[in-house]
């Protein structure tokens, strides 16, 4: 396959809000079920191990009309919760059998309850991800939470997940994460050969593909990328932070890059690579998964960190990626991101790293304003 064809395929997969890919997967796997997983991070290994397809929920993008959800969701709530509800209310979850929500914010918490009531045909569960990572009881707690969710999935699937099956699923996701890491490293070194829009399409295509198929697709792309030709342009390197849950429109990423930036580091679709290193298998795979979540050092607005850690880690990442500036780019009304922005901005000031705040919504249609903002930002850096 040509690399352009791969991106076309990814775009088709990502644009398909009817989840027909999921329907096709189910047709090929008679009796198997599919579970929608809300961002940011859900342990999809559990779903996979139960013989089901974990489907990444990423909102409705700019693709769907809001005919029902607006009457149930106030104007001060983020787009992804609204569009997720709309997708369900317009029958687009018909190929799903359940939904899993993680404890990321106050909106997602109640959204899980709304989905549970409005979509009675779906099995809906809520995972309370641990916040006190310093506690001696945290791994035991989280292991039991994973076990609880696993039982729910098993009941739905009508089978029992064995440790071996879970270990195999963990390995499959380890492989996927490894290729994702390679792709991110590639973009960091050669951003002119892999745009952020392309990397996002590649990653997001995994929302509806089986993990093995997605990993193959990523690997194939990586092989093709090394043969891709292109020349670096005179652009500044930036880090984009704050879009860990709701995703900015692809046009916005494109507008940012065209305005004179290479996005070389970001927290887009962060959950897909939340576990930054392999989950080490050693006996009990549930415990391995629990320990991995607790011990790994991914820093984000949706998980508590000791004071200063959140801000310090951003500065560290900015320095490691040798960026010229940081874009604090968050979804409108996203409280976790907006609260953190104050601390992050102060830290960037202190570290002398230029920064710009941008807000986005799924339904935004005009990108002239952010483009101009970014252009001005770029000029201020280039001609400083």
């Amino acid at each position, binding site marked *: 396959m040509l690399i352009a064809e791969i991106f076309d395929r990814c775009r088709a997969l990502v644009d398909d809000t009817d989840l027909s890919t999921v329907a096709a997967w189910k047709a090929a796997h008679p009796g198997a079920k599919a579970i929608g997983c809300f961002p940011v991070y859900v342990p999809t290994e559990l779903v996979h191990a139960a013989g089901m397809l974990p489907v990444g929920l990423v909102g409705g993008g700019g693709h769907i009309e809001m005919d029902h959800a607006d009457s149930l969701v106030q104007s001060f709530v983020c787009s992804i919760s609204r569009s997720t509800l709309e997708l369900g209310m317009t029958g687009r979850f018909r190929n799903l059998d359940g939904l899993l929500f993680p404890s990321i914010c*106050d909106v997602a*918490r109640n959204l899980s309850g709304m989905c549970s009531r409005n979509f009675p045909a779906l099995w809906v569960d809520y995972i309370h991800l641990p916040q006190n990572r310093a506690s001696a009881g945290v791994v035991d707690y989280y292991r039991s939470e994973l076990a609880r969710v696993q039982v729910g999935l098993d009941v739905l699937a009508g089978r029992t997940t064995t440790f071996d099956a879970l270990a195999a699923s963990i390995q499959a996701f380890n492989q996927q994460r490894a290729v994702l890491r390679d792709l991110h490293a590639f973009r960091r070194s050669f951003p002119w050969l892999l745009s952020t829009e392309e990397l996002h399409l590649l990653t997001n295509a995994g929302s509806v593909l089986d993990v093995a198929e997605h990993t193959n697709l990523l690997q194939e792309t990586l092989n093709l990328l090394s043969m891709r030709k292109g020349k670096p342009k005179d652009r500044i390197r930036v880090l984009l932070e704050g879009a860990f849950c709701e995703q900015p429109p692809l046009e916005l990423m494109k507008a940012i890059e065209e305005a004179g930036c290479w996005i070389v580091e970001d927290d887009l679709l962060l959950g897909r690579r939340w576990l930054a290193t392999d989950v080490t298998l050693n006996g009990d795979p549930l415990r391995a998964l629990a320990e991995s979540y607790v011990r790994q050092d991914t820093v984000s607005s949706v998980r508590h960190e000791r004071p200063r850690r959140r801000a310090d880690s951003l500065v560290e990442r900015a320095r490691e990626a040798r960026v010229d500036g940081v874009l604090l780019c968050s979804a409108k*009304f996203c409280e976790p991101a907006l609260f953190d922005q104050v601390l992050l901005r102060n830290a960037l000031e202190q570290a002398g790293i230029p920064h710009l705040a941008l807000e986005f919504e799924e339904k935004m249609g005009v990108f002239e304003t952010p483009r101009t903002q970014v252009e001005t930002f770029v000029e201020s850096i280039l001609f400083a």
Partner: protein
Amino acid sequence: MALYQDLGRNLQKDLLAKWYGDLALANERKEPVAYLFVSGNVEELLQAYGFHLVYPEINALQCGIKKAAGGFIQKAEEAGYSSDVCGYVKNDVGIALAGGKWPLGNLPKPDLLVCTYAGCTTYMKWFEALAQHFECPLFVLDVPFVRDEDVPAADIAYVVTQLRELSVLCQAVTGRTLSEERLRELVRLSAEAEDLWVRVLEMAKRRPSPLDGFFEAVFFMAPINVLRGTPECVAYYEGVLREMEERVSLGIGPIPEEKFRVVLEGPPPWPHFRAFWDLFKRWGVTCVASTYPRVGGIWDWGMRHDPERPWESIATHAMNGYTNWNLARRQAMMRRFVAEYHADALVLHSVKSCRAFSMGMADTRELFLREDRLPALFIESDLADPRYFSEAQLRTRVDAFFEALEHRRSARV
């Protein structure tokens, strides 16, 4: 003759004056100060170590009532806080930026921040910011959300483990050791106050009700949330109960004539409390039960602190506050209130500041309208930010709703 009327108000004035007076001197006297939240609060443990307790949420609501919130919120926005985030946080950050000077004097600096992550993610962001501002230790007590019909034993065990760890931290901060006996005594007194508080709330089951289960209850609830574990708190609720019993015997109520009984969901708009209450009073509305007084704990159906199991009962209590319950449980609770308190309607007050409350409210309205055929009114303003209150608009909606209700009632007769 009325002997006990206004007892609740007057006693509370004294209690809070003493509490804030002690707070103002705590730093100077080198006595330990802890900041904590209402939801999921573990004040018994902190009191056992002799901490003075500061509740930033209560300070924010006091600012609201005293019409001082706007200035503090603006100060925080000038420091970079978005207009779209919780007004309580901005109010409190505004106070911190003003060096603790606020309408009731001076707030002490904390020696310890205890964030109960109990159904509110904003809590965490709030204390992360304060920890950086005050450069003092922050303990996040991770309280699992009540997400299922049963609470898993592992959840309780996790919270108890953390409470023991918090206790070690308290020891380090205060240099004091814990007396289990003192903890048991605090917990026992809490349970006693909880019994009395539930009896007060349940007075509103009477027809007419002697108590407004929202507009008065959100005021009477202060001691159960901030002074639990003290003999004064128990005495306070004995007083309030006496006041309510006397109201019954004298035929006094919160309004001259009760015409409608409603259940109210959501927080009050503190900066416009009187104006908001007036919207309902003029229609003869008594709120017989409401969800806001259950933020600090849902004691209605038997949950109590227990001196036989102090740690486990503190953990259970931390989990069972209103916002830490999933939507289905909350909706079931409102249904129960409607039935047990004989309500004619449900009023939902959505506030921008608090998504933990507001997200899902329109869905609750649908549930009651469609499945229960119960009239339900949905209105919006804010609990903290005085800018989000349109009295004319609210009045139009409230009037239209009760006019229709009145019409329906007279048509039935």
